[in-house]
């Protein structure tokens, strides 16, 4: 291959961090609308930066702003001229958490997956065109349960997804036993698909 993958950080080259986060959330879940506070929380960006990005995206017609009483919501605008193309770019560059959340949703809703997160280069924001999605899943789900969702996500993302599936008890035991891999995952950058930092801390105890 002629180009070093390390020189290509696709998502970052195309969009700034906040815009990438907003687009990944809204275009990844185009049937849902989000309150501003939820957008801040999910993409962990400052409120000013998120407000500015939403303002630009609404003006450009890529995002819809709707009001209900005193509540304001934002959603993707599927009628935008470049909606499908932009959605495809976002899915391939920044949408891994959203795509995996959708594909794992049935297992999350039944409680078979209690926590799922992306670690590694994608979580660190340093992915290249060749980066895989490193996925840690905690719960009673088996590989047989997880693999169909992983394959579907791979097809949508155009990236390979590498799952590690741990029952909660084994995860806790191995973490306490000092498995370097799990300790690195827990202390390193993460993107949560199911659960959050507090839940991870609770499960690790």
């Amino acid at each position, binding site marked *: 291959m002629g180009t070093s993958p390390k020189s290509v950080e696709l998502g970052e080259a195309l969009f700034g961090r906040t815009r990438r986060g907003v687009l990944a959330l809204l275009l990844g879940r185009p049937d849902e609308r989000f309150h501003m506070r939820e957008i801040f929380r999910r993409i962990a960006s400052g409120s000013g930066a998120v407000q500015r990005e939403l303002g630009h995206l609404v003006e450009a017609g890529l995002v819809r702003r709707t009001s209900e009483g005193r509540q304001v919501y934002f959603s993707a605008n599927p009628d935008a001229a470049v909606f499908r193309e932009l959605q495809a770019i976002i899915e391939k560059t920044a949408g891994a958490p959203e795509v995996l959340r959708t594909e794992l949703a049935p297992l999350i809703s039944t409680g078979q997956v209690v926590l799922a997160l992306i670690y590694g280069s994608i979580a660190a924001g340093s992915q290249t065109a060749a980066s895989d999605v490193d996925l840690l899943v905690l719960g009673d789900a088996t*590989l047989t349960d997880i693999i169909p969702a992983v394959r579907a996500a791979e097809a949508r993302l155009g990236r390979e997804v590498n799952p590690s599936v741990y029952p909660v008890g084994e995860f806790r035991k191995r973490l306490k036993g000092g498995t370097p891999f799990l300790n690195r995952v827990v202390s390193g950058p993460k993107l949560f698909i199911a659960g959050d930092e507090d839940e991870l801390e609770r499960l690790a105890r």
Partner: protein
Amino acid sequence: MSLSDWLANRWILVHEASPAEIADLFALVDRDLEDAAVPRLSADWRLGITYNAALQLAMLALAAAGFRPGRERAHERAILSLRETVGTAEATVNLLDSLRRKRNQNNYERAGTTSTAEAKELYEIVTVLREQALKWMKKNHKALIPPGLV
């Protein structure tokens, strides 16, 4: 896509299997499954050894059908050929294909990505696959089966 299409694409090549070759491959499968059951081994290694047993099962079924993988993506194509030879369910083949990558990661990149639960699940799947492969051999290629397994 049938194996004759695979042959036309040179994903597989014509190969004449002998009973000795099939006996050797079955012996590798049984050695690997026996080793994979050793509980004191790491889950990473147990998964890797079990995957190897699955790969040898795929190779022996392909050989019995009269083929061997071509040079490129040989392991991937051997695993995928289980659908066409033994008639393995697509979900199982997809799982084995996904674990091919996990096994590479375990071997060369980082330790500890496999849970004991994953290693155990794969072991059970490949144990069933061995029975399916043997049944398929008995039905379609009985003359190639090692005497101890008939």
